[in-house]
């Protein structure tokens, strides 16, 4: 999409499994609520049973997109590259967003590990500029630590806002 080659590095492949799991955790309550509401509607005879079943099924299927194929699409389209002068992030399957953050503008950098991420040995790298934070999600622990250290080394600390 641009004249500059897209960023080179991909996220850790285990990210797909992680996202699938968190997609499942998100979809389960939605499915339960949908079934309960549908059952309730049938009980008070507001809608016929097939219609209620269809609504519950559609809602459950929509929530299940978070398990498949969304994580795969997300992973396939997430790219990043930590260059000498800039951090280059590209993500999104439907809407592609490419963000470039100059090293000189980065104020500090974190690695973050949630409870689920820890199970998979994954970590996120979060970059902070004066205009907000950007995240590289789901890198292997070792890779994330190296990325964090590299960014911290390259980021210019003397810059005034």
């Amino acid at each position, binding site marked *: 999409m641009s004249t500059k080659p897209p960023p080179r590095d991909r996220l850790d492949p285990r990210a797909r499994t992680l996202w699938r799991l968190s997609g499942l955790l998100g979809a389960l309550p939605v499915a339960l609520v949908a079934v309960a509401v549908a059952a309730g509607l049938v009980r008070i005879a507001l809608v016929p049973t097939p219609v209620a079943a269809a609504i519950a099924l559609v809602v459950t299927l929509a929530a299940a997109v978070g398990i498949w194929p969304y994580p795969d699409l997300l992973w396939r389209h997430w790219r990043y590259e930590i260059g000498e002068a800039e951090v280059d992030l590209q993500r999104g399957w439907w809407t592609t967003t490419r963000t470039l953050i100059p090293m*000189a503008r980065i104020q500090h950098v974190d690695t973050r590990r949630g409870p689920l991420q820890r199970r998979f040995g994954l970590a996120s790298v979060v970059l902070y500029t004066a*205009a907000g934070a950007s995240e590289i999600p789901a890198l292997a622990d070792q890779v994330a630590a190296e990325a964090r250290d590299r960014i911290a080394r390259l980021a210019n600390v003397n810059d005034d*806002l």
Partner: protein
Amino acid sequence: MPDLSPRRQHPAWIFLSAIQQLRGMAIPLVVLLVGGGRRGDEAFLALGGVAVLLGAVARGLAWWRFRYEVSGGELRVRSGLLAQRERFVPLERVQAVDVNETPLQRLLGVVGLRVETAAGGSAASDVTLAALSRAEADLLRQRLARGRAAATGPAPDAVGAGASDGTAAPGALPLPVAAGETAGELIRRITPGELLLAGMTSGRIAPALAVFSFAFQLADDVVPDRWLERLAMTGTLWSIRGVLTLVGVIAIGGWLLAIASTALTFGGFELRRDGERLQASYGLLERRRRSIPIGRIQAVSIGEGLLRQPLGLAAVRFESAGYGTDTAESGVLFPLLRRGEVPAFLAAAAPAFAASIDPAGLAPPPPRARGRYVVADALPFATLAVVAVVVMVVVPWGRWWWGLAPLALAPFGAVHGWFRFRDTGWALDGAGRLVARGGGVERRTTIVPRRRLQRRSLVQNPLQRRAALATFGAAVASGGGGGTITLEHLDEGVAAGLVGQLGPASADQAVSPSGPTTEAATPHLA
């Protein structure tokens, strides 16, 4: 030397903070007094008296516990009745020091002082001293500035001059004069004619809404329901003539209120340059004085509201890391200028931002993007119509075609989109500044030096990909929400070239945006 021993605010603070607390309860109090006078109220009044007494004691203690000092290169504030709270602000983190003066403060012979820090838009990160004597406020301002100068290196001695000039006797001038207001070289002062014009074209409806909602609330609380019912019964309220009159009265009243509130807010607006700082002072009743370090300005934007466009008028604002969006006027550099005067004004006030804003020098999005702007702004109404039709089909008392009503607004959306397309444009000038213009109801031109950009982005959805278009975005550090720049539906090669040219690796080079066809072949990244 720049230290300041621990001290308290002026005792008037007790009164001021009590008033502040009472203001929130004004309407219940009025209702209580109007509707009072029945038996059994004595106990209630006694309870109220005790509460007021306790409140006064608590305010007094709070005043006693609140101390501030300047030492060790920091402004240190200690406060809190039970839980002690300490806040240390390093002087080099101080973005600006504002002096405010409400009529009440003037009556009590004190001024308010607010220290803005770089920690973002929330007022919680700032230090507010609501009651200082003029002399104390001057002293603190001077110490803060001197400490900051010592911490950040070379600085002009302008600060001292500011403090020594600020001794004008209050009341000696037609306008109230905040401490140190006359320091520095005058860049521009608003004339009464400009002030009136600014009010007439401001399009501010917030003050009118506030007044009307207050009036309705008061009417609801105080006027007996019987009267309102009788008014409704007689039908005078609901005849066509009645409705038209009401609308007319509200519109004209709102317009007059907008003029009055603009005059009160920006009356006597004066911008001075004092070395590396700008001093803006404004306000008829409440006199505010903002001190803006020029080096902290991230971006300057020139806004032309709908009513101002045909008259060639504009307001100039700035984005700075310290200021939030807590008040509407917080980022105003000058409330009204002729568009042609803007470059000269910027050259005097903030030369780093004095780029040409001539529309002829701006590259527009390609013509194939026009339909996208128009459709994007009309589409919400069509979506709304679809939803409304579905709802009307489902509910038993509805007719399906009632749901088409939102479509009546779609043409307005389309016109808005066409305005946006017409106004959008960009340029990258020889000094490495991005000039980006966006439109709609208000046309806004933003000027930002390349090195102030915190990030750039390129966004493309499949529909844009098919038409080889992309949306360019960028962000500067900002306390408020105004720190983002978006240029929708540029040619994808142009947008990618823009992202590349604004990056740190590229040299400062001029790009003449002569047109989409030549731009598409930008050799820079090829």
